[in-house]
């Protein structure tokens, strides 16, 4: 660890950006929420459980959680073409995997719950913000669940572990460069999602997971508070 290490925005290594959460942002939806880490803003809306079309995708053993992650074309400095991409398709699936372990989807055989996630403004950690908004929207929609999940990106900049990466940090080039580890955990501390890009030793990876545990506890409190303020949707 270098003593002179400084994050570009002056945060402490384990400090999150200011986070905010709000429930009930889309009146038409059965449940909805906004979640932001600093300049990264995600909104999510839930429709369902409802009849599952097309029919051949129905699952008679349990319901289907169908997530759709998308970045608005102008959410990043270099415009992205509207519509799905390989990246957004993968993140949509990752999001389903991150959420489903806590959602009691068995209650809804043959039915589908749609979760639509859109990134309004991006400054890295967008999938984490999306997952955080999505689980709140599901809770708001009254979908029974065993626990909430909370998601955060842990980074390694050169040799230093940090919590909640910004775009500037993601593009870190000095020393060993940047390693990006988005992690989603239940409040109980179980991992429902982890990805990694970069390079890191096992010892430090274990530390990263511990760091994620601490950060997700803080995020959980913000999510819980926002949900309590609103309660379930009528």
């Amino acid at each position, binding site marked *: 660890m270098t003593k002179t290490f400084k994050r570009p925005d002056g945060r402490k290594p384990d400090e999150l950006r200011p986070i905010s959460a709000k429930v009930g942002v889309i*009146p038409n939806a059965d449940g909805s929420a906004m979640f932001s880490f600093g300049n990264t803003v995600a909104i999510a809306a839930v429709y369902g459980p409802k009849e599952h079309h097309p029919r051949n995708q129905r699952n008679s053993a349990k319901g289907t959680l169908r997530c759709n992650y998308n970045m*608005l074309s*102008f959410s990043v400095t270099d415009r992205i073409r*509207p519509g799905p991409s390989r990246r957004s398709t993968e993140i949509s699936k990752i999001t389903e995997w991150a959420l489903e372990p806590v959602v009691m989807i068995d209650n809804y055989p043959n039915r589908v719950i*749609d979760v*639509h996630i859109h990134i309004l403004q991006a400054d890295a950690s967008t999938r984490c913000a999306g997952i955080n908004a999505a689980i709140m929207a599901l809770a708001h929609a009254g979908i029974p669940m065993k626990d909430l999940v909370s998601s955060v990106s842990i980074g390694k900049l050169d040799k230093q572990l940090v919590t909640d990466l910004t775009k500037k940090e993601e593009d870190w080039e000095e020393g060993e460069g940047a390693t990006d580890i988005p992690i989603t955990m239940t409040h109980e501390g179980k991992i429902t999602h982890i990805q990694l890009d970069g390079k890191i030793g096992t010892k430090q990876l274990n530390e990263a997971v511990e760091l994620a545990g601490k950060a997700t506890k803080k995020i959980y409190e913000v999510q819980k508070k926002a949900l309590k303020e609103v309660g379930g949707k009528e």
Partner: protein
Amino acid sequence: MIETSNLTGERIRQYLSDGKRFDGRKLDEFRDISIETGVSKNAEGSAKVKIGKTEVIVGVKMGVGEPYPDSPDKGNMMVTAELLPLSSPRFENGPPKFPAIELGRVIDRGIRESKFIDLDKLCIKKGEKVWTVFIDIYSLNDDGNLLDAAGIGAIAALKTAKMPKYDEKGEKVLYGEWTERKIPVSKETPVAVSIHKIGNNLIVDPTREEEDVSETRVTIGSSEGVISSMQKSGLKELSIEEFKNILDLVEKVERDLIKKIEHQIK
């Protein structure tokens, strides 16, 4: 389950013939409009517009590309619209369907034909390099009249948009860095107003239910009393008399609408 029933339609028509609407508005009255600009900081310009419960977000990005052969010294503009499934149980994922395509095209013509953007000033090198203005519209909540909301959003986003920096030697845009220069737009504020015919009545700013029972819609883009674009949609015919009434109604509501927009865009 999500269509407006015939019975509701019947009631809407009955109310309108008495000069009333479900939400207590007059026939020529808009719902509350709120405009927030600068809502997405990586965009050159952006705006969120709410009309009642209807909400859209619009962002403006700039790119550099080749000019069209018939306008070698003019910039380009492009409008896209997506009706997000997030915004209504009626919208589905997949390639854009007609309503989204029409929305984008009507807004495109409203802006293009009013000459709101000064495309002459967006030429970098004649015949080779010009700016393209991308205007992207997304619905966030559909409770009717997305079209007028999108039009207001596009204007608000453009009016507050800044030009990105451009590296002339490297011939590329320095995304994420902005100049102090605004995108060149005219002072006049063009607006698109949609008039709907329900039974024998004409209304502005329909709610979702009202839009469902609308028989025909005429959207008129104008600025300072000069009409520059128009689109009639829907199957029902209009008499000359009705058409005149539509023009009168647009004139009546337009000034107030422009005032509201200009007041809220700083």
